[in-house]
């Protein structure tokens, strides 16, 4: 199946054949990725459900535990965002909450909204609107950056306090990986073809 596509970066008009999972097509003029062979709707749905469970887990479980002269301090995503409120830095608190908690939830919620009705052969209500919300929101998800910050903080604190290994960090790592996988594997073309079949 051949399909016309415009390069997102240079607007060159191109014909793209069918891609298998894991394949990608590049623009011959500027090397932009035109299409990525995305996963099926079912695979995306499974990722969304695991993402929602891991979101809840990483929200309440501690991401860092430190020991400072015998006093232990555990920190969850929730507390990280809200600690800045005590110093009246509500703009920064909002930014941290948005990028690590709210945006991932909107991402997963929109995904669930878009995918669940399709499994029952129905077109989601407000499909275009939710799809645009999903797109506008996805740039705000910054979990990988937050993970790097966790590592930097851990090293920074070594001369002051002792860091305790905690299994709950794995929940956050799993959450981050599921979200990255979804961003890589979601294919708008695959999705809209599925919507078209239901109409």
């Amino acid at each position, binding site marked *: 199946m051949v399909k016309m596509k415009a390069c997102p970066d*240079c607007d060159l008009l191109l014909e793209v054949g069918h891609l298998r999972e894991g394949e990608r097509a590049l623009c011959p003029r500027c090397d932009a990725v035109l299409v990525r062979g995305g996963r099926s709707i079912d695979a995306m749905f499974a990722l969304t459900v695991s993402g929602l469970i891991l979101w809840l887990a990483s929200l309440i479980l501690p991401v860092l535990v430190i020991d400072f002269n015998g006093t232990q301090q555990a920190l969850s995503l929730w507390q990280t965002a809200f600690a800045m409120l005590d*110093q009246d830095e509500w703009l920064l608190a909002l930014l941290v909450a948005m990028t690590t908690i709210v945006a991932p939830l909107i991402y997963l919620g929109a995904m669930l909204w878009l995918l669940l009705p399709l499994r029952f052969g129905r077109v989601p209500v407000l499909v275009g609107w939710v799809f645009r919300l999903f797109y506008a929101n996805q740039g705000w998800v910054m979990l990988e950056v937050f993970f790097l910050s966790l590592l930097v903080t851990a090293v920074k604190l070594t001369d002051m306090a002792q860091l305790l290994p905690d299994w709950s960090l794995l929940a956050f790592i799993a959450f981050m990986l599921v979200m990255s996988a979804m961003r890589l594997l979601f294919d*708008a073309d695959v999705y809209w073809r599925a919507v078209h079949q239901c109409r």
Partner: protein
Amino acid sequence: MSITALSQGLVACEHCSQLNYVHTDDVVACGRCGSAVQRRSLPRLGRVWALLFSAVVLYIPANLLPVMTVVSLGKESSNTLIGGVVHFVQTDAWLLALVVFVASILVPLLKMLVLSSLLFSVHFRWCARLRDKTRLYRLVEFIGKWSMVDIFVIALLVALVQFGEFASVQVGAGSLSFAAVVLLTLWATADFDMRWLWDVCEEKEGDANV
């Protein structure tokens, strides 16, 4: 001349990439997802310039003011962005120094430099090395959010180091400016359309052939 979607009267939907036929000044609803689709008119550089300029201005307090103050056993020490890097170098934490230097100093500078050179390229129709310029744009798009590392580290320290008079961390005024720099450059990058440059260069090539 290359065949672009625009030259065929086609416009790709920015949300679902579907091609739609659009007449000159019309705004149509995308046939697939319903988003508003219209032809790219002249590049709207003003908005991107405004965002970029605000970022450049705020970059100064972001670097001069302390991003945080560490209170430890009654002693206070203020840290600027570059001070954080220097501290890691002094304590031989080279890898960390590199990570923080790249995220908080190099990435914002690179973003502002690349974006302004792209804006000038569109304005003055500098069409050399278009492919490399497009690659640079994608690089800036990709690295943009990694400057948030500093903001997250400060948030984590503030939340973790709460041991009353023994130790605490206060947010400094520089943090807010730095966060603003990160957001403004992210928005400027998102607002800039790489196709503007390809468009004006097609046009320039067309002019030369007449």
